[in-house]
C-alpha cells in the first residue's frame, strides 16, 4: 500500500440524519421562500388596491359633496339675487308713488304703506312715512279709519319684531303715569324704573326716566341710563329719545358695546287717563334690522372668540 494510492477505495463519508434532512429541506426552504414572497406580494398588492379603491370612493364622495355644495350656493345666491331684484323693483315702484307729484288717494297711500311695511319692516325705518300719512289724513273725513289702520299696521309689526327679539334677549315692562312723569308699581310710585338684564353673559342695569309726555301725539321722551359692570369697573352711558307708536324695535334702537341693542317700545298710551305702558328690550345685534351694518372690529372680535371656543376642547 502506497501513500498516493487510489481514493476510490476510500469509503464515502457516512451521512447522518441531519445531513439527510438538510438535503431534503433545502429545496423545500427555497419553495417556502418563493411562496412567502408570492403571498406577501399578493397581500401587498391587494392591500394597495383596496386602499386605492377606498381613496377613489372617498375622492368621488368629496367631489360629489363639493359639487352639491357649489350647486347649492349657486342656487342660493341666484335666488338671493332674484329676490333682491324683485324687492328692489317693488321698493322702487312703491316709494316712487309717495315721492311722485300728482294726486294719490289716501287709500292708495295707505295700501302702499302697508305693502312697504309688511315687506321691508326689517330693513327700513318707515316712521317718517307713517307720520307723513298721519299728517295727510288729518282733514280727511275718514281720518279715524286711517289712523286706526296705521296703528294696526304698526302694532302688528312691533309684535312680530318683539317676538323675535324676546327669543334672544331679555325684556321688562313698566307703567308710566304721564301726568306726573312717574312709574307707579303696585302701591308705590317711583321717579324711575331700573332693572337688571343679562344677555350673552353681560349684565346691564337699565334705568328709565320720563322727561316729557305729549298726549296729542301720544309720545314720550325718555332718558335711558345703562350701567354695565365689566372687569371690576362700571361703564355708564346715557341717552335721551322720544318714543311713539311708530317706533319699531328692530330698527329704532340704541347700539351698545359687544354688538347689543336696547329698544323701548310704547305698547299703550291712554291720554285721557294719563297712563302709558312700555317694554324695554335688551337683545343681541343679530336680531336687529338689516339697516345697520355691524362694526368690523366687533365682527373680528366675535370670530376670534368663536375660534377660541372651537380650539378650547381640542386642547
Amino acid at each position, binding site marked *: 500500500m502506497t501513500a498516493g494510492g487510489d481514493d476510490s477505495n476510500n469509503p464515502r463519508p457516512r451521512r447522518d440524519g441531519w445531513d439527510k434532512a438538510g438535503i431534503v429541506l433545502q429545496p423545500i426552504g427555497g419553495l417556502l421562500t418563493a411562496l412567502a414572497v408570492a403571498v406577501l406580494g399578493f397581500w401587498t398588492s391587494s392591500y394597495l388596491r383596496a386602499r386605492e379603491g377606498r381613496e377613489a370612493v372617498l375622492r368621488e364622495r368629496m367631489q360629489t359633496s363639493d359639487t352639491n355644495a357649489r350647486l347649492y350656493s349657486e342656487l342660493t345666491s341666484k335666488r338671493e339675487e332674484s329676490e333682491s331684484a324683485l324687492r328692489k323693483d317693488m321698493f322702487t315702484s312703491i316709494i316712487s308713488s309717495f315721492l311722485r307729484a300728482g294726486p294719490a288717494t289716501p287709500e292708495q297711500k295707505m295700501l302702499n304703506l302697508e305693502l312697504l311695511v309688511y315687506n321691508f319692516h326689517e330693513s327700513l325705518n318707515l316712521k317718517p312715512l307713517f307720520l307723513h300719512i298721519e299728517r295727510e289724513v288729518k282733514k280727511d273725513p275718514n281720518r279715524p279709519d286711517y289712523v286706526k289702520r296705521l296703528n294696526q299696521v304698526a302694532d302688528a309689526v312691533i309684535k312680530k319684531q318683539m317676538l323675535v327679539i324676546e327669543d334672544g334677549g331679555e325684556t321688562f315692562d313698566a307703567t308710566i303715569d304721564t301726568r306726573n312723569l312717574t312709574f307707579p308699581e303696585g302701591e308705590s310710585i317711583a321717579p324711575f324704573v331700573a332693572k337688571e338684564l343679562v344677555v350673552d353673559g353681560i349684565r346691564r342695569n337699565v334705568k328709565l326716566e320720563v322727561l316729557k309726555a305729549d298726549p296729542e301725539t301720544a309720545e314720550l321722551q325718555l332718558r335711558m341710563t345703562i350701567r354695565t359692570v365689566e372687569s371690576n369697573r362700571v361703564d355708564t352711558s346715557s341717552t335721551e329719545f322720544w318714543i311713539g307708536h311708530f317706533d319699531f324695535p328692530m330698527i329704532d334702537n340704541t347700539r351698545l358695546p359687544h354688538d347689543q341693542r336696547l329698544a323701548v317700545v310704547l305698547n299703550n298710551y291712554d291720554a285721557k*287717563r294719563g297712563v302709558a305702558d312700555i317694554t324695554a328690550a335688551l337683545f343681541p345685534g343679530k336680531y336687529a334690522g338689516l339697516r345697520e351694518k355691524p362694526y368690523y372690529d366687533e365682527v373680528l372680535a366675535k370670530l376670534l372668540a368663536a375660534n377660541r371656543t372651537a380650539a378650547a376642547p381640542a386642547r
Partner: protein
Amino acid sequence: MKRKFLIIAALCLVPGAAALASEVFGTVSENGKPLPAGVAVKLECEGGSASGVTDQFGSYSVKTPATGDCRLSLTHKGSSPSLKVTLYEKPSRYDLVVKDEAGKLTLARK
C-alpha cells in the same frame, strides 16, 4: 213689534260689546318656574270683575269690558296676593312674579 225688535237688537249688541273687551294677559312665575295649571286669576275693575286660570305654562288671560285701573289677584298657596294693573283698549301684558316676603306672598311685575 218695535219693542221686540229693540230687545232683540240690544241682545245682539251684548256679544258685540264683549268683543270690544280689554284684556290683561301674561305669565306668572315663582322662583323662576311657571305657576302650575289651574291657579285662579281674578280681575276686579270698577265696572265688574272677571276671572281665569293659569294653564300648564303659567300663562293667563282675562278679558273685561272695563278699562282703566283694576286689581289683579291670584289664589295661590292659601294666599291671595294682588297687584294694581292698568287696562287699555289694546291688550295689556303683565308678566308677574310671586315673591315670598317674610312669609307673605306678594305679586310684582317681572
